[in-house]
């Protein structure tokens, strides 16, 4: 029942936002709903409910291992959203607030989906619910980004539907009774028809990989992240990508059970390293600091994919990295939003010396940059270190070398651009605009809290989290 509450509460909040009369008070629904959701999720994280075997939706170990991170990210973004929407009071926010709450509800459904069809419905619905968020700014550029998002994302999601049908047919062809829950499919294991399982894996990985933003299916990502408001960027990078990653993990479990785990490992490794390399190369040349965050997100999706390829221990590290990526990337997006608003521009040609105009946001942005490029004692350092160690321990020395090389390139690219906009002498236009932008507590505290989470995960991971990740890995890689 509680697992359904996680879905119903945000959706009810979205419905309420749809009929709420006042534009000024409506944004408060975001943190209110976010708080209920976060409290509920944290309570369930500590007291995991029993999972009925045939349930379509359940707070199972995998959901428990990642959904709380998304919920915390949403809560902080929602708190930031109140002040953001106050600044943007000239635009009606009814659709924005309702869509953002719907995204939270559908993300909860997607993380908890234990049925092939339900998983697809939830991820497709998240994609669609995010559309009004992307073109909130109403500019021609925003519509262009939305169009690319819809066309690339829509095609990707269509392919994942085809993949779901293929996996269903694999079960039917192997004599299955048509039960499409992941547990039943994995139980059918070697009885699944191999050719159809392989076709399904390719299509599902392409489809959900598009949603994650793995190269070469990443093309929508820089545009969408660049044009969307910061809180939307943070939710896309920390929440929507996460649901796609859990989808890949769930499908991978079935592919493993069918005896094709070698294929799954190879494809995940190739896509992961490819994404990291491509992102690192683009990081070296992009001039726009919001697009920079998109490329950084592609890089981190590559890291997750490499982690997932490396078996149980690697998946454990990837689940750890999901938390680090969501929370750290959130801090980066929110502080980048402050800088963008103060500077009135996004490229290094127009923005410089932000350390003088918005000292606190610039400080958070630099600290977030160091965190995301794996500086100890922030969380990402520990999860990435773990992936490297697993790679060496499992005899994937070349993978570890490529992984580290890409991280180094990405570090060069990120620091180059971030210091270009933080250092130097501020432009005259930015000085004038920055004078009007006040760094109030309401826009400073949320990114600071997220950065604090990232530090906390690194220095003192609360013991309940490793336990949750252990449980998820045990569920995904059952010892025969």
């Amino acid at each position, binding site marked *: 029942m509680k697992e359904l509450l996680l879905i119903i509460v945000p959706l009810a909040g979205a419905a309420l936002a749809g009929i709420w009369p006042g534009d000024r008070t409506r944004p408060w629904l975001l943190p209110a709903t976010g708080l209920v959701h976060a409290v509920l999720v944290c309570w369930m994280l500590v007291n995991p409910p029993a999972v009925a075997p045939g349930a379509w939706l359940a707070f199972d170990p995998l959901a428990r291992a990642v959904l709380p991170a998304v919920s915390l990210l949403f809560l902080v973004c929602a708190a930031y959203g109140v002040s953001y929407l106050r600044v943007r009071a000239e635009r009606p926010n009814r659709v924005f607030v309702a869509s953002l709450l719907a995204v939270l509800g559908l993300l909860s459904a997607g993380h908890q989906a234990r049925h092939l069809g339900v998983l697809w419905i939830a991820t497709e619905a998240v994609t669609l619910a995010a559309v009004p968020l992307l073109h909130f700014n109403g500019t021609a550029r925003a519509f*262009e980004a939305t169009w690319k998002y819809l066309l690339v994302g829509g095609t990707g999601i269509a392919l994942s539907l085809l993949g779901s049908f293929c996996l269903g047919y694999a079960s*039917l062809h192997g004599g299955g009774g048509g039960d499409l829950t992941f547990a039943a499919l994995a139980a059918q294991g070697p009885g699944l028809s191999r050719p159809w399982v392989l076709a399904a894996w390719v299509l599902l990985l392409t489809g959900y990989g598009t949603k994650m933003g793995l190269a070469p299916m990443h093309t929508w990502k820089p545009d969408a992240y660049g*044009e969307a408001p910061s809180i939307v960027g943070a939710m896309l990078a920390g929440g929507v990508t996460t649901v796609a990653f859990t989808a890949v993990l769930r499908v991978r479990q079935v592919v493993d059970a069918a005896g094709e785990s070698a294929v799954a490992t190879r494809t995940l490794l190739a896509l992961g390293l490819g994404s990291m390399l491509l992102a690192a190369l683009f990081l070296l040349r992009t001039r726009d600091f919001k697009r920079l965050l998109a490329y950084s997100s592609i890089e981190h999706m590559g890291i997750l994919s490499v982690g997932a390829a490396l078996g149980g221990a690697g998946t454990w590290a990837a689940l750890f990295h999901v938390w680090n990526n969501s929370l750290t990337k959130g801090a980066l997006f929110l502080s980048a939003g402050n800088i963008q608003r103060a500077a009135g521009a996004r490229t290094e040609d127009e923005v410089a010396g932000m350390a003088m105009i918005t000292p606190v946001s610039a400080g958070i942005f630099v600290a977030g940059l160091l965190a995301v490029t794996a500086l100890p004692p922030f969380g990402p350092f520990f999860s990435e270190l773990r992936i490297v160690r697993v790679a060496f321990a499992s005899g994937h020395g070349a993978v570890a070398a490529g992984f580290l090389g890409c991280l180094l390139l990405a570090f060069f690219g990120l620091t180059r651009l971030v210091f270009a906009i933080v250092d130097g002498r501020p432009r005259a236009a930015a000085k004038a605009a920055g004078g009007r932008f006040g760094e109030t507590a309401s826009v400073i505290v949320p990114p600071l809290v997220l950065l604090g989470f990232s530090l906390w995960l690194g220095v003192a991971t609360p013991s309940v989290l490793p336990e949750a990740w252990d449980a998820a890995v045990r569920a995904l890689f059952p010892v025969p």
Partner: protein
Amino acid sequence: MSGALNLLIGLALGLNLVALASSRLPSVITAAAVQGMVLGVLPLLLEHEFHWLVGLVAVGTVAVKGFVIPGLLRRALRAARIDREVEPFIGFIPSLLLGAGGTIAAVAGSRALPLLPEHAGTLLVPGALASILTGLVLLIGRMQAIAQVCGYLILENGIYLFGLLLIHSTPLLVESGILLDLVVGVFVIGIIVDRIQRAFDSLDTRKLTVLRE
């Protein structure tokens, strides 16, 4: 029954070629709409006994794919007052050849696929593969947003055909959820097309080039 099924799928295959060869946007829209309606009635043929949910899904599919979405696209076309000639990246003859070659390859190739005996005699799988290919060719090879949406519709029709393989084994609840999602998806695309038209005063996707690296 299999005869009627194959007849309708054959009709859908012909409509693929019509969509590829049409040089005017309204006829591309019509081809996609008629194809959607033809495929919408297939579940009624496949189910052995009539179930009210199947009927509802079929009626809903026909109404939305045949009338609502084409209506939305035609309205956008009227509002845009754009040139109704289709502008291809991939010319009409090459796309037609691709479509025809793809259809033949799909029919021949699906003999090699491991299919259950009850599906081996139908055109379901070749029809699905050929429609998916047609949809992709239209998505890649046409310049106007509306033609690309039609490509997306045909792609979805192909996937829907493939999904019919599972109609007896999956719960109808899931199928109707999937259909609902698809419908909302195309609807959202239609609305964005409308907005793009207002923002750019054009539906030529070549003009969407501000964002590039």
